[in-house]
C-alpha cells in the first residue's frame, strides 16, 4: 500500500483551518451555485430578490461565513503556493502581511455589501 503522504505539518493551525474551511466550502459553494444558477438563474437576479434572501438570518450568516471561509481558504492557498515556490525572508513577510491586509479589506467590503443587501443603511 502507498505510504501516507501530506504536504503540511499536522501541528500547524493553518493546516487544520485550510481543511476545516475546505469541508465547509465544499457544501456551501455547491449550495451557492445550485441556488443562484440552477434554482434562480443569474440573469434573473435583482436586488429585490437578493434582499429577500439576505434578510433571512440563516442565509445572511451562511453567506458571511462563506465569505470569511472562502477568503481564508483562498488567500492561505495563495500563500502556501508562494511558500512552496521558495519565497522566503523579507519578500515572504511582505507577502504575508499584504495578504492579511487584503483579506481583511475584502471581508470588510463583503460584510458591508451583505448588510446593504439586507436593506440596511451604511453609516
Amino acid at each position: 500500500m502507498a505510504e501516507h503522504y501530506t504536504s503540511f505539518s499536522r501541528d500547524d493551525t493553518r493546516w487544520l483551518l485550510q481543511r476545516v474551511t475546505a469541508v465547509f466550502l465544499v457544501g456551501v459553494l455547491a449550495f451557492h451555485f445550485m441556488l443562484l444558477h440552477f434554482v434562480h438563474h443569474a440573469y434573473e437576479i435583482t436586488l429585490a430578490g437578493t434582499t429577500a434572501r439576505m434578510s433571512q438570518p440563516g442565509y445572511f450568516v451562511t453567506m458571511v461565513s462563506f465569505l470569511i471561509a472562502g477568503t481564508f481558504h483562498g488567500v492561505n492557498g495563495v500563500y502556501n503556493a508562494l511558500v512552496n515556490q521558495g519565497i522566503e525572508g523579507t519578500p515572504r513577510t511582505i507577502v504575508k502581511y499584504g495578504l492579511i491586509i487584503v483579506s481583511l479589506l475584502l471581508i470588510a467590503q463583503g460584510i458591508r455589501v451583505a448588510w446593504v443587501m439586507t436593506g440596511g443603511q451604511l453609516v
Partner: protein
Amino acid sequence: MSQSYDRGLVENFGRWTEFSAGMWAWVFHKFTGWVLIGYLFTHIAVLSTAIEGASMYNGTLQGLEALLIVRFMEVGLLAVAVFHILNGVRLLFVDLGLGLDAQDKSFYASLILTGAIAVASIPTFLGGAF
C-alpha cells in the same frame, strides 16, 4: 505515518515529461484555486454595486448576463469550481490516508465528472442568451 517529500518545483515545465496523475492533480488544483480566489475579489467588486442602489445593481448584473462571453465564462467557472471541489475531496481523503492506491483513478474520475457536469450545465447557463 506521514513523511515529508520534496517534490521540487512543479511549475518547472521542463519536467513535463515526468508528470503523473498526482502531479497533474496538484497543478490543476493550484490553477483552479488561483482562478477561484481571483473570481472572489471580482465577485465582491461586482456585488458592491448594490451599495449604489437597485438600478445600478440590476443594470450591472443584467448587463453582464447579456454578454454571451460571460455566459461561457460562467460554464468555465462552474467547471473550475467543480474540479476544485472534487479534487479537494480527493485531497481530504489522501490526507486521511484513504484511497491512496487509487489516487490516480480518483483524479481521472474527478476530471470526467467535471466535464460531464460542465457539459450538462450548458443549457442552464446559456438559457435566454440567444
